């Protein structure tokens, strides 16, 4: 979700087999460098595989280039890496959020499982609760939110949406990314 000179990204913590909850400590948002974040929903095994794979790729990028990766560059890396598996895809739908390291401009985008980028100026949603999230974000989001308001908006949107989805919830991680500062908050949420 985009705010004024800041972005936020959040995920729930549930890991389940259909209706059976296995773990309530399975974060789906991963940090790559100072202000590039990747959220992954979908098949849990591919969430781990893909997040580890990008850690490898981004670390090598940083060592080689001696600078952090920019979110737009990272988005293209995600896209091309997913398309490599065009005919045997990872079952994930990623979301990228970050601030451009030079201009500080917010950047968000989403992908389908084979890497088609969906750029957005406002918000991106993904996962089993995406329909509910669309509704919540459409009604709560407004342009130019400050970091605190953005945190409130994204948290309310997420919590309200997952309450209407039996397959999501069980706590949440919320990251608010500002220039030179990243705030990570844990939301307990409903544990039932």
């Amino acid at each position, binding site marked *: 979700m985009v705010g004024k000179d800041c972005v936020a990204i959040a995920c729930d913590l549930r890991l389940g087999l259909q209706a059976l909850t296995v773990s309530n400590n399975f974060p789906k948002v991963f940090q790559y460098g100072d202000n590039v974040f990747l959220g992954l929903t979908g098949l849990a095994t591919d969430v781990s595989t893909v997040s*580890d*794979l990008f*850690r*490898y790729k981004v*670390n*090598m990028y940083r*060592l*080689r280039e*001696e600078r952090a990766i920019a979110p737009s560059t990272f988005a293209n890396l995600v896209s091309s890496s997913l398309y490599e598996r065009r005919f045997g895809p990872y079952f994930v739908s990623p979301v990228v959020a970050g601030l451009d390291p030079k201009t500080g401009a917010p950047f968000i985008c989403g992908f389908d499982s084979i890497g088609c980028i969906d750029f957005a100026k406002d918000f991106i949603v993904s996962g089993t609760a995406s329909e509910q999230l669309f509704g919540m974000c459409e009604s709560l989001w407004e342009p130019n939110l400050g970091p605190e308001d953005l945190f409130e908006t994204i948290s309310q949107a997420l919590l309200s949406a997952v309450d209407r989805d039996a397959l999501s919830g069980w706590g949440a991680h919320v990251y608010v990314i500002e220039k030179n500062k990243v705030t990570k908050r844990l939301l307990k949420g409903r544990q039932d």
Partner: protein
Amino acid sequence: MSRRYDSRTTIFSPEGRLYQVEYALEAISHAGTAIGILAKDGIVLAAERKVTSKLLEQDTKPTRSPPGGFHKCKSADPASNMICAVAGMTSDANILINFARQSAQRYLLTYNEDIPCEQLVRKLCDLKQGYTQHGGLRPFGVSFIYAGWDPQRQFQLYLSNPSGNYGGWKATSAGANKASADSLLKQDYKEDCTLKEACGMAVKVLSKTMDSTKLSSEKIEFATVGQTADGKIYQRLWSADEITTLLKEHDLAKDASAEDK
């Protein structure tokens, strides 16, 4: 006589020597000096940067040595949890460092943990060793000094050379004047010295082994591995200002007024 044996890496001479490996070592002894000192709370790596020409672009970052040169020194990081100083051919070092980074990242991918220092060093040395045995190839002309930390063995310092040998050290050196640097380190080394003392020792040794008596931040590079108060491990490549301050502390800095003349 020796001509019959020294043209190939894979052949022992009748005296049981591998000439190509010895030549590689010789090449390194023309490189700038690099030293590493293990302290109880960290490790310092210091290296001489040879400035070959005024026209050469000086990198703003202290990590990179001028590209393509022969016998340059530099501090580079093979992985995120280790740093190393290089003495020898930069081009050879680049290949090895890339290999080390890939190995370390592959380990992280497999085990979700940083690679233990010795394993990374050994991986690199296995590669180096291969080039002393398999036909038609020249050995890598580089020595590395590695500084790292892992949960099992805490702070560690290693030295490796073109033959593929490596060892753990309390203080060691590579490059030009290795012999004198080593004996100075042997003389000055104190068990349980702090990182700060080790830094002081490093500049002193460098000032004695380098050709010029007065040092400046353009001529040397510094990097440290240490532990913050809350137990986090950090690696840091020093900025020019920090090096200058250190030099002034030990009264080894080049006089600013003398430089103007």
